[in-house]
């Protein structure tokens, strides 16, 4: 399995869905349409490409691109061929929702909960979408970049010590 082969297979199967592709550090990275994501992953898992393992799901936030502000990154792994693939989807702040992959990979359950916890991305069809790492009454999604890095309750900090 090579990057060209996998990219070819995906573009042939879903010509409308692939938006762009690149190979940072040799790992095939494909940006796809949000609506088709579950379909594509289902195909990748069940076709002869056999991406049988979901390595990771994580969110990403680009405040400077309003059209593509919130993203979700999926890492898939074909363990037989030791081939890795990265899928990215992007959406605007108005409609932060994407299909859940729990039906395809049971491991997606906690990963999607984490992504929801930190970025507020809702996963349609997730059986139990609630915070997993942060405390339940935190009240916001801390990895979004509109929040300050520092904790506001710190009383002993002298800005002069931090060059600010």
């Amino acid at each position, binding site marked *: 399995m090579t990057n060209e082969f996998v990219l070819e297979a995906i573009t042939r199967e879903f010509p409308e869905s692939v938006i762009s592709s690149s190979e940072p550090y040799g790992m095939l990275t494909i940006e796809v349409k949000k609506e088709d994501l579950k379909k594509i992953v289902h195909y990748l898992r069940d076709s002869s490409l056999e991406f049988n393992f979901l390595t990771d799901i994580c969110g990403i936030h680009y405040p400077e691109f309003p059209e593509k502000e919130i993203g979700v990154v999926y890492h898939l792994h074909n363990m037989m061929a030791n081939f890795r693939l990265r899928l990215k989807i992007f959406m605007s702040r108005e409609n932060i929702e994407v299909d859940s992959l729990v039906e395809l990979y049971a491991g997606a359950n906690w990963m999607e909960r984490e992504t929801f916890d930190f970025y507020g991305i809702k996963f349609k069809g997730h059986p139990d979408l609630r915070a997993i790492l*942060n*405390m339940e009454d*935190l009240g916001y999604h*801390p990895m979004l970049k509109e929040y300050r*890095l*520092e*904790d506001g*309750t710190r009383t*002993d900090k002298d800005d002069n010590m931090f060059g600010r």
Partner: protein
Amino acid sequence: MSDNKPVIRTDAPAPEGYEGEGFFATKLSSVIGMARKFSLWPLPFATSCCGIEFMATLNPTYDASRFGMERNSFSPRQADMLMVCGTISKKLGPVLKEVYTQMAEPKWVVAVGACASSGGIFDTYSVLQGIDKIIPVDVYVPGCPPRPEQIIEGVMQVQALVESESIRRRDMPEYQKLLDSYNISN
């Protein structure tokens, strides 16, 4: 080869009092204070690197047992010195508070290290910026992480507090007010 032999002091000062032939009269609180001072039972609330330093403090090299800290209690009801060693996240805050409230009076709290004292380098959304936000603290030990000597110094500070504390202190309205400010009911 170390050449420092253990020194056993038998001339430690007795509490203030009246001494006569075959008897010694002193204040009850001095005796109680002295007894408490040399039998502090710590409850190690160790979450991270400071916890490891605390474990080193309990090792024979530093030998916390010299201070009567022989028994580390993991049951809050049998402990009287809560040693919070390490980062306390906001999610763990309620747990720490529950442990504190379950300890029997009299109790003392040592915040070991920068994280327990002020949140340390973790100035983020998830970390409690010092345990004194949720429970009263008696002694802060600086350091990141503090060496065992520093932890022992903190324990000795607590001992000084314990020795001089009146046995009525915990019944005082000021103490009640302190607990009320933390919403801890006694």
